[in-house]
């Protein structure tokens, strides 16, 4: 109490009036007996008039400060922040303050309590209404805020989910070729860089196959662009069928495709794969009754031939092998073998080698 203020009582208030002012008050006598209790606190404790005259300790536990008991340390509690729980409702935390009331000799204390942060649970558990709270309390505002926050959060979560879906779709779009659904150049570059870095760190080796269609322009010129598109989709299907799940198939230009083949692959197996692809692509098929005939040239570079693996040089060499295959008569596959000359200038030698039938 502030110095200078009289220690004499300021007012006499009935328990009923006090209950309206502080619906969660608790008045204890010198022996720790309950002398009066506010209506909301009575509701929370599960009994109304039954509390009056009963010992405090039978109905409440002081959880903080620890070891505080009533009535022993009752007056010592005055002015301190208290936490207690009703014994019959241990889930409902109460907090508040006690002040001494009445003549010192009588040693009574008056508590004013509230729910604190657990207010929403208390309202739900005890079916409280707005009239159970003093108008000065911010209980309504806290409940209002809690619901408003929940509504706003759910809107934000929904917005985030929509944005994430849109982002995924945009990413997939940015990385794929709309006509064939294959990966595009950007996706290939990303995967190639990642794979090369992995291999440089000691990961599995890989091969890069550059594929260029032969006679595609003729199909386009004689049968039209729709036929050309049809061919490209057919090529994509063939490449997808020949690739393993861990491989990447990309369309990187008009009629240029790339296969990124992960894992150590035998030279002969690669050669066979290239030839199988060419054979399948050479099989005649019809577009609206008109026969389409194409072929493909393939150049393949292997990461084992580079130390460290260099995606850019591999791509250049695979291209060089591809053009060597074209110059060698189209419809063939050249694999730059282990120990084979890697410089582009030496590729003529590789191309000059007879294509394996």
């Amino acid at each position, binding site marked *: 109490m502030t110095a200078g203020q009289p220690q004499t009582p300021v007012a006499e208030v009935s328990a009923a009036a006090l209950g309206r002012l502080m619906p969660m008050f608790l008045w204890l006598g010198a022996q720790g007996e309950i002398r009066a209790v506010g209506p909301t606190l009575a509701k929370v404790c599960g009994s109304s008039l039954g509390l009056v005259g009963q010992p405090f300790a039978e109905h409440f536990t002081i959880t903080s400060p620890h070891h505080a008991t009533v009535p022993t340390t009752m007056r010592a509690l005055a002015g301190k922040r208290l936490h207690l729980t009703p014994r019959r409702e241990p889930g409902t935390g109460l907090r508040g303050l006690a002040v001494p009331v009445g003549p010192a000799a009588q040693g009574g204390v008056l508590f004013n309590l509230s729910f604190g942060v657990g207010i929403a649970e208390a309202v739900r558990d005890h*079916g409280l209404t*707005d009239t159970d709270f003093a108008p000065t309390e911010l209980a309504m*505002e806290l*409940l*209002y*805020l809690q619901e*408003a926050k929940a*509504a706003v959060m759910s*809107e934000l979560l929904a917005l985030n989910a929509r944005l994430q879906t849109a982002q995924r779709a945009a990413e997939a779009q940015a990385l794929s070729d709309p006509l064939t659904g294959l990966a595009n150049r950007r996706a290939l570059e990303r995967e190639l860089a990642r794979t090369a870095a992995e291999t440089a760190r000691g990961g599995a080796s890989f091969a890069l196959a550059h594929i260029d269609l032969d006679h595609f322009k003729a199909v386009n010129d004689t049968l039209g662009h729709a036929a050309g598109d049809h061919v490209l989709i057919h090529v994509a299907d063939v490449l997808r069928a020949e690739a393993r799940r861990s491989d990447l198939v990309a369309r990187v230009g008009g009629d240029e495709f790339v296969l990124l083949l992960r894992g150590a692959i035998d030279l002969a197996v690669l050669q066979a794969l290239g030839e199988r692809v060419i054979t399948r692509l050479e099989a005649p098929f019809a577009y609206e009754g008109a026969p389409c005939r194409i072929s493909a040239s393939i150049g393949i570079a292997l990461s084992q031939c580079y130390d460290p693996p260099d995606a850019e040089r591999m791509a250049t060499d695979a291209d060089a092998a591809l053009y060597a295959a074209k110059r060698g008569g189209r419809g063939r596959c050249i694999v730059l073998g282990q120990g084979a000359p890697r410089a582009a200038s030496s590729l003529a030698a590789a191309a000059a080698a007879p294509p394996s039938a």
Partner: protein
Amino acid sequence: MHGLINRSIQHFLRDTYGAPLWQAVAEVACVPAAGFEAMLPYDDGLTFAMLDAAADRLGKPRAALLEDFGAFLVTLEPLRRLLRFGGVDYADFLVSLNELPARGRMALPELDLPHLTLSAEPDGRLLLRVQGQVPGWGLVLAGLLRAVADDYGALALIDRVPLDDGRDLVTVHLLDESHASGRRFDLAQPVAP
């Protein structure tokens, strides 16, 4: 205008007049294809383009549309609950209208609700002065106050009077505080099923 308000208008038009009307309005007003996002801001012009397109298509004055929109807001349960936190009874709720912009900001700091000033006339009528950043709030408020009166079970006559300075005056004549039983309101949020 805040996306929350725009999206509420979108839901009002779609739920009241059907999806085809909303599609037509959205097209005319150049509303984003996926509709409004509640948590994004939009240009005020878009809101008025949407309201004009709807009024035009429905052959209904914009004023009537705004009043209906105000009433529609109270049918949204989360919003109805937030409004009911304003007061124990309708009279108490009316007094809380002074705090409406502050309550709005408490929920969403970017939400720019109109400034409301409540005063009492000697004949017992209440006058609500509505001053918003954009015109039309008085009409929305009038529709909303009628619906909230029903929600509390109160009988009130509510009118909107446009003022010369572009502001609105909403008069509330509370005839019977407990005319009907009103709708139930528990402080505790109903547990989701």
